[in-house]
């Protein structure tokens, strides 16, 4: 069965702090894709990153970085020098290869205080 777990329900940090959002997934597929989405207070879902199961290279995009480790089935997301505008709910998701279905974690609400 496919499953995504985001154990952190809510995190609060002060601006400029670094913060890591955890994501653990379960799948029997050897080929799969992992995603992170941001949902700001306005409600829309914004795509942040996609990773396939064959590529364990970490990725950095500005203040965002992602650490993909197949050995621990984790795909963690770090925001460096957080800003108030980073306040949002962040979802981790898994897409299976065969059926193109997306499975979402329950989300982590990030509060960045000035």
């Amino acid at each position, binding site marked *: 069965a496919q499953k995504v777990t*985001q154990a952190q329900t809510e995190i609060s940090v002060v601006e400029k702090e670094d913060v890591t959002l955890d994501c653990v997934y379960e799948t029997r597929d050897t080929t799969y*894709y992992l*995603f992170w989405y941001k949902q700001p207070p306005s*409600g*829309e*879902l914004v*795509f942040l990153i*996609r990773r*396939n199961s064959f590529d364990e290279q970490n990725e950095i995009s500005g203040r965002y970085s992602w650490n993909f480790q197949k050995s621990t089935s984790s795909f963690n997301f770090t925001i460096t020098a957080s800003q108030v505008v980073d306040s949002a709910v962040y*979802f981790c*998701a898994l*897409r299976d*290869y065969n*059926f*193109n*279905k*997306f*499975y*979402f*974690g*329950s*989300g982590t609400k990030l509060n960045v205080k000035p």
Partner: protein
Amino acid sequence: NAGVTQTPKFRILKIGQSMTLQCTQDMNHNYMYWYRQDPGMGLKLIYYSVGAGITDKGEVPNGYNVSRSTTEDFPLRLELAAPSQTSVYFCASSLQGDSGNTIYFGEGSWLTVV
């Protein structure tokens, strides 16, 4: 750049009423999805479709129906609305492929059943 468009954005229904949430995409994606997001919760898959004429149930299909007569449109029908269907509904689409294409979301429809 319309992407995924869903209407209405807000709706209040009385218990027992029926309504249809409209969803259309202009990206020629073969996969379409309906998710619901309850307050403070993650996304749960209601129904999905792999192409025109083909639909399948997701995790929480009870109380809903869908149809997919064209590639572009994927309406969600609520029959006999119940308070438990108060939620935010997201329509989404993706393109099947080895590249693990991203899922694109509409802006959401806020539904309240009173």
